[in-house]
């Protein structure tokens, strides 16, 4: 699997990120780094604890990362959650979680598969 195919599998825009960051190696480095990023985890814990300020910051950060890495699909779902939390619409935020979670895990899984290919 190529990185471009990996991007395509989770609804990302590989051409755009490559154009901005210039080198495929660099894109790959940050895609791997995304596996260790804590913002999604922080978001879900904060939502469970009803710490909505922290949840907003976390999902906003996640959104920013998606923007930078052109994770288009997850960018869209994290935008919905961010907006809901900014408007203090906690119910809508909670309702957006399944989609957000699905998009997030699809990326994580795809990256792990890609990583496995590279190593194998």
């Amino acid at each position, binding site marked *: 699997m190529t990185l471009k195919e990996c991007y395509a599998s989770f609804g990302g825009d590989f051409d755009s990120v490559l154009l901005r960051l210039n080198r495929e190696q660099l894109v790959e480095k*940050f895609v791997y780094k995304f596996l260790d990023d804590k913002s999604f985890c922080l978001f879900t814990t904060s939502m469970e604890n009803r710490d909505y300020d922290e949840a907003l910051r976390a999902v906003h*950060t996640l959104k920013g990362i998606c923007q*930078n890495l*052109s994770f288009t699909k997850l960018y869209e779902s994290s935008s919905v959650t961010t907006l809901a939390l900014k408007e203090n619409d906690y119910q809508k935020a909670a309702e957006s979680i399944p989609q957000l979670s699905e998009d997030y895990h699809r990326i994580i899984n795809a990256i792990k598969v890609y990583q496995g290919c590279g190593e194998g």
Partner: protein
Amino acid sequence: MEKQKILIVDDSEMNRALLIEILENQYDIEEAENGAAAIEILSRQRNEFSLVLLDIMMPEMDGLEVLSHINKYRWNERFAVIMISADDSPEKMQRAYKMGAFDYISRPFDSVIVRRRISNTMLLYERQHQLEETIAEQFREQEKNNKLMIAILSHIVEFRNGESGAHVLHVNTITELLLRQLILHTDRYSLSKSDISLISLASSLHDIGKIAISDEILNKPDRLTAEEFEIIKTHSAIGAEMLSELPAEQQDMPLLKTATEICRWHHERYDGRGYPDGLKEDEIPISAQAVSIADVYDALTSERCYKKAYTHNEAIKMIIEGQCGAFNPLLLQCLEEIADLLKNAQNHNGIKIKGEISS
């Protein structure tokens, strides 16, 4: 050449890492993971940085609070602040601009645009700094020339008076010391530091009227006759008249106004028995009052063709006891208070007083 340094303030480790990746070849980078940490770093070592990249939404202290702190203490005179903005907060960016942000970079980061934007900003800041330096340098140069012109002029007068070359310099310095001491006691005369410098500079011209007095009288080694003394006394009014004949548009210049009042009234006495106008107490401008004491002190402690030099202690005693004129009691108190400074200065040939007060 040493690399310029950038502080990246962002709570997302990934975002910081991405910016570092884009910038680390060209710049030294330091990171802060929230606003409070940024303030901590900047309060310690802000002079090292040429630029701060500042995220808006952060825990502890957000970007706008950081910006407000930077603005309050005018730290951004030294470095530029570029906001890292999410595309969905134009109103926050507008606030950031109002609070002194120089520019913003929005996500997603484009490596070429980020690099170019940052290097342009730094270049602009550096140029502005150089320009400010150049202007300040020119200003200092000009001021040096102004002082030099006045020094030349007063030296000519001194030369002819047969006074020691340092008299004008001493009067400058003593006047400045007296007035600085005076404003510690009262704000009655509303003197700013720059007023005091101006008076000190203008004091150089106090005796210019003497060029109209004949050599025979001016440099007569014997006691002057009453008639001759009357002629000498005209120098204060003559000096002021000479200045008043300068072109009308120059008459409003503070230096000329001050010099004129010093020329005319530096032989007035606090009790009203001086010349040429018999002004008393605070009818005499404070500039002339201060120069008057400075002039007397330095005349006493210098050797002249008609007298030997008194010691510092003798001179102070004679002035305080009223043997050499009548002065403002507050200025006499100031004279006593600066006596030690003057004494040390006298021991070191006078001229060094300047260094001691300009700390």
